[in-house]
């Protein structure tokens, strides 16, 4: 067993809550346990609950509530985080119910959803929460029976005397545990002894989702609540001057209309930088608000340049060519210039990718109830703590007077790291003096900004006469942030190496988008390496493995941000599982591997041509994310990442004309659909005992590269510009 020091604030433990309906999240019903199997007899609803610590509440009947601290955006942490607690607590998963914890910065840490970090950052805290509670319950039983804790064992919530007959359930002893001294040290289970972690447990919200229960922010309602919508300027670079306020107010069902300002002092990275002044309209029904929105006649003034996609392309080209823009990060090993000069073969390619929208299926929305002394916010946010801070600044209200509760989210993908829509709801509620739910239309959502930046990057490689990689350089520009990770692969594998990250300016607002920058660099770098391997006359997997061998035996530089063995490990695994060497007539293959968000993923795409169109038949994935907490859900995450990656690389782009997005809904903005998805995805996990990392993002980036390489194998076309479907020339298909 591993002994760990407990790190809790003692006062946060010793609370007994004697409540019949302890649901902290509105609309939560704790009548259903973590199983939907009716054959399993459910434990009776407790009369009394005993709060053991901030994660665990035990009912007198043995039902256990586990609070899931982090926001749920579809990454399934509402199942996997409580599983980790339940493992160490040693309780039957069928007797567990899960509740969403509210924002509580005094108790929980890292209550956010981003960077595939939920499990990685909370792994120890969750285990400790379970182990501490287990220890306290055992101590309570030991005291009751006047024996030592060493004489007791626990199985599935039943404490048993090792050399005796006595047993007691957690439910029966929980009240005694409440007054116990918090143990200074607790024992964590050996990883090999895990019984729950590593087994597939179904989504705890599955039944509610498939029966349409109100779970999402957009579903939230409250007595006396009004609805609100915003109208932002039609273009980036524009600002609202005034609008036909009286006319709008007079429309049926409209109770108020005004201009809001959500500018705050010292805005943080997740505060809105673009449309800070907007028109807000308030009313009783969504449809009447939508009609009133269409009737808005506003005067907008131009405050900065109205940009177009053509300008964006030129800006990026210039940044790469002349170094205009800011060089933010750089790395240089050896002497790349000299090495390119003496190289026997040199290859250079430039890759581009447009702006993209997040398009969470649930548009932005938030509930706010602001009174003179308090603000209550409920809704979909990946960042409850920064939301609370920004609302505090906006309303000039102490943070203690503000509460934030998180609903299940209809997708995040980084979009809900930005908190402006919560601020908009708060300022509208303050103005109307009523509870308000702000709703974005799809068009508001798609044209508001916070986009995935546009990118352009040039890769160059030099081979010697023996086809060894002797020089590699990459220079990437982004609007605004350059897509370069100077210390990632292939840094460390080549003697002469340089990387430059160039930032350029735009007034289009951007933000993190599922696997930020990695989704682009993986596609560009892995397509490029495919071409370099071809130039070297080497198999693309063998070529990469050669590079990893160098990084393992004699790495160049010291700052390399990856473990070469694990990187090579996923490539070897996908090579073996996909029978890489075997050729099937008509099936064309592409491979890619990428490391981001602490997880290693390699993918092989099998593609056929159907009537001249590429169709992905199968994707093979090898993943090293350390311990896999909930295997089937982990597979689901990787499947989703692959489909999302292929979809956006193939079809999606957001273009601009005079500062306004040309695509504002799904009629023009293309997302991947059923018939375009791969027919099969098979996922293999590397088995090890390394602390788990995240899976929300890492499955996506390699799919872009593997797809591009498979398209090349099928058609002879090296696609360097996204979306691929737009640049693929059907007449040139040779497959």
């Amino acid at each position: 067993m591993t002994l760990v020091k407990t790190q809790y604030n003692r006062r946060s433990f010793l609370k007994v809550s004697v409540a019949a309906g302890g649901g902290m999240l509105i609309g939560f019903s704790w009548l259903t346990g973590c199983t939907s199997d009716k054959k399993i007899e459910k434990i009776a609803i407790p009369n009394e609950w005993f709060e053991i610590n901030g994660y665990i509440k035990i009912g007198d009947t043995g039902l256990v509530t586990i609070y899931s601290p982090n926001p749920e955006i579809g990454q399934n942490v509402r199942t996997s985080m409580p599983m980790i607690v339940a493992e160490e607590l040693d309780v039957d998963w069928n007797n567990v119910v899960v509740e969403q914890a509210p924002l509580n910065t005094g108790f929980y840490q890292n209550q956010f959803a981003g960077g595939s970090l939920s499990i990685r950052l909370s792994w120890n805290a969750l285990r400790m929460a379970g182990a501490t509670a287990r220890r306290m319950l055992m101590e309570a039983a030991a005291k009751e029976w006047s024996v030592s804790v060493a004489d007791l064992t626990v199985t599935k919530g039943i404490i048993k005397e090792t050399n005796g007959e006595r047993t007691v359930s957690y439910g029966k002893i929980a009240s005694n545990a409440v007054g116990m001294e918090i143990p200074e040290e607790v024992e964590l289970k050996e990883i090999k002894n895990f019984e729950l972690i590593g087994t597939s447990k179904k989504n705890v919200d599955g039944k509610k989702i498939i029966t349409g229960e109100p779970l999402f922010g957009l579903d939230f309602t409250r007595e006396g609540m009004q609805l609100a919508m915003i109208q932002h300027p039609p273009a980036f670079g524009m600002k609202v001057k005034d609008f036909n306020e009286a006319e709008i107010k007079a429309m049926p069902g409209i109770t108020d209309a005004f201009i809001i300002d959500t500018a705050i002092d010292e805005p943080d990275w997740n505060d809105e930088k673009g449309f800070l002044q907007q028109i807000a309209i308030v009313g009783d029904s969504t449809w009447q608000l939508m009609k009133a929105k269409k009737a808005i006649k506003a005067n907008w003034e131009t405050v900065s340049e109205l940009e177009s996609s053509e300008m964006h392309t030129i800006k990026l080209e210039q940044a790469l060519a002349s170094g205009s823009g800011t060089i933010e990060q750089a790395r240089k090993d050896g002497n790349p210039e000299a090495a390119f000069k003496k190289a026997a073969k040199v290859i250079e390619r430039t890759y581009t990718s447009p702006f993209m929208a997040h398009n969470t299926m649930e548009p932005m929305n938030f509930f706010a109830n602001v009174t003179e002394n308090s603000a209550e916010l409920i809704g979909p946010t990946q960042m409850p703590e920064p939301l609370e801070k920004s609302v505090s600044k906006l309303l000039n209200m102490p943070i203690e007077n503000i509460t934030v509760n998180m609903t299940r989210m209809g997708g995040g993908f980084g979009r809900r790291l930005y908190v402006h829509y919560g601020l908009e709801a708060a300022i509208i509620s303050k103005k109307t003096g009523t509870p308000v739910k702000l709703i974005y239309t799809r068009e508001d959502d798609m044209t508001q900004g916070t986009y995935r930046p546009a990118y352009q990057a040039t890769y160059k490689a030099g081979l010697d006469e023996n086809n060894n990689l002797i020089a590699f350089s990459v220079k990437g520009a982004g609007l605004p942030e350059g897509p370069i990770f100077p210390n990632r692969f292939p840094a460390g594998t080549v003697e002469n190496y340089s990387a430059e990250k160039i930032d350029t300016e735009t007034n289009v607002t951007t933000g993190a988008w599922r696997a930020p920058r990695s989704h682009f660099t993986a596609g560009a770098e892995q397509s490029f390496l495919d071409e370099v391997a071809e130039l070297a006359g080497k198999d693309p997997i063998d070529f990469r493995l050669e590079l990893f061998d160098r990084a393992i035996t004699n790495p160049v530089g010291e700052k390399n941000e990856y473990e070469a063995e694990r990187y090579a490990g996923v490539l070897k695994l996908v090579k073996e599982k996909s029978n890489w060497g075997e050729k099937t007539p008509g099936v064309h293959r592409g491979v890619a591997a990428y490391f981001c968000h602490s997880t290693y993923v390699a993918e092989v795409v099998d593609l056929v041509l159907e009537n001249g169109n590429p169709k992905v038949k199968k994707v093979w994935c090898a993943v090293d994310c350390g311990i896999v907490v909930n295997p089937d859900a982990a597979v689901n995450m990787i499947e989703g990442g692959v489909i999302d990656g292929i979809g956006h690389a193939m079809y999606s782009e957001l273009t601009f004309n005079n500062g306004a997005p040309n695509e504002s809904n799904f009629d023009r903005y293309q997302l991947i659909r059923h018939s375009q998805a791969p027919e099969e995805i098979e996922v293999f996990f590397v088995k090890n005992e390394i602390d788990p990392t995240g899976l929300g993002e890492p499955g996506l980036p390699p799919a872009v590269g593997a797809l591009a390489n498979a398209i090349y194998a099928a058609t002879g076309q090296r696609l360097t510009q996204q979306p691929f479907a737009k640049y693929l020339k059907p007449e040139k298909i040779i497959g």
Partner: protein
Amino acid sequence: MPKYSLKINGEKRSVEVDSDTPLLWVLRDEIGLVGTKYGCGIGQCGSCTVHVDGSATRSCLLQVSQAEGVNITTIEGLSKDGDHPVQKAWLEHDVPQCGYCQAGQIMTAAALLKSNPNPSDKEIDATMSGNICRCGTYLRIKQAVKTASKL
């Protein structure tokens, strides 16, 4: 405002709304059935799919004035205890990620299986392609439709 009498999940419901109000917002704002989701408002994403006399219909495009005299079924009324074969198959394959689009996917799938109990892969693709899932659960959806066809 005009009054409309609707038959939703076997119950008569009377609402007073503008005549051009889409059924989607009648369900969500007036009746409180929020399982039917808003995704695009223009019939492109399928999140708002309900059954009108058994056929999959985009409720964001159906005005309330056209919704009288038909039988409307929403996700809440698809089965009594969430035990419609499609719902059971969805749980078996643990389809959802974020879950937002799934009610629409389930309603589309249920209507498909009613009219075509053993659809081919191509038929499943063709019918389900009107429903977007940004999380990318398409493979599980297809597997679940196939499983449901055998239940």
